[in-house]
């Protein structure tokens, strides 16, 4: 386990160092906006906010409510594309 976590840390470091993480993040954001995921999420946010009350809503509330939905709502094509890129990065840098 120790080994695995260390491996993970090294991979993360490489992702950040090469700038691949930022690139992937930007790509994901663009794709999600493009496919309407963002609008869907905003609608979800509205419901949450109305439920909690405009004044009392916190970031934690939002994150707890929104993140599972957000993960579920990501379109398959976007997900596949992203996984492909990550895998390519790993095979390239893990050797």
């Amino acid at each position, binding site marked *: 386990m120790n080994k695995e976590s260390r491996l993970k840390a090294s991979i993360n470091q490489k992702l950040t160092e090469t700038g691949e993480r930022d690139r992937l993040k930007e790509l994901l954001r663009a794709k999600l906006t493009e496919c309407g995921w*963002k609008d869907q*999420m905003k609608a979800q946010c509205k419901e949450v906010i109305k439920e909690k009350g405009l004044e009392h809503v916190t970031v934690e509330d*939002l994150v707890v409510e929104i993140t599972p939905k*957000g993960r579920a709502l990501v379109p398959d094509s976007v*997900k596949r594309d992203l996984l492909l890129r990550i895998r390519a990065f790993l095979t390239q840098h*893990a*050797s």
Partner: protein
Amino acid sequence: MKMEEKPLSGPDNTRLEALVQDIYSELVEDACLGLCFEVHRAVKQGYFFLDETDQDSIKEFEIVDQPGVDIFGQVFNQWKNKECECPNCKRLIAASRFAPHLEKCLGMGRNSSRIANRRLASNNNISKSESDQEDNDDLNDNDWSYGAEKKSKKRRSDKNQNSPRRSKSLKHKNGELGTSISSDPYKPYNYNTGVSYESLGPNEVRLLLTTQCGVISEHTKKMCTRSHRCPQHTDDQRRAIRLYLLGPSALTLPDADVGGDCFDVPTDGQALLSRMQWEDSPDISPSDSASSKASTNHSDSRRPKKKKKSALSMNSGGGGVNLTGVGSSSFQSNISLSTKKKKPKTAAPLVPSIYDQLN
């Protein structure tokens, strides 16, 4: 490091796949977190619900998607046939023609100054060629025909569109003009307008003179269209012109009660284009008749035949004191040149005697 990377490089796909999934979910959560921050900030700043409206207004501003109607549900060409009332002449003009109409009606706008200049120029040409007629005939010929072409073109356009000013007198004139032009479009300018005026029936002339001042301007060669009280001309001038056109029988000057409404017009050259070629002066002097004679000489040189006729009719006209009778007969005969020639000649000798009677 090398030791740790070794197991990864091996075909341990499940571990690799787990790693990939981890990174992916991290990225997605990151995106969600970013969104949450964004939304939270918007809520606290108070602009998150700005684009929301209540149901009523949503219904009210719903986009309409029907044929023949724009997105607001209005008929989109409802303004097409709108008519506007011209503040100047009180007629209804189609909205699309309103601006061009105003330009002409008020004499303001883009083209009007150009038109006015052209008009001035042509008028100058006319008066000049009248004065030095005998000197250079050829040159004058060009001028005349040029003027005639211009005039006929203008008039045609005038008829097609809404001609700006259509007073009573003008209506007569347009009608007469139409016939005279179509019958003989290439007559010289001077000749042409003379005809059109003279070919008004005596009754029409009388009607015109009972409602308007009618004095013929020296510069524009047009009849004054103001009321009988117009300050520009004297009663003597008016009397003279009535004497001239109607004969002594119509000498009473109908006055006063017509007064108040002045037409503000006499500058409207195109409409009231020089009707006659003699000058206005209190009483028509021999020199005037001479000049009109000179002006007709020109057309005579083109049409020697008509000269005889004119001479004949002049004789017949000269005999009678009642000019209107003679006038009407010659009007109907429609021999424009003859009437034109006769008028000045017969009128000139008549005037002094009339004045004697008056005095």
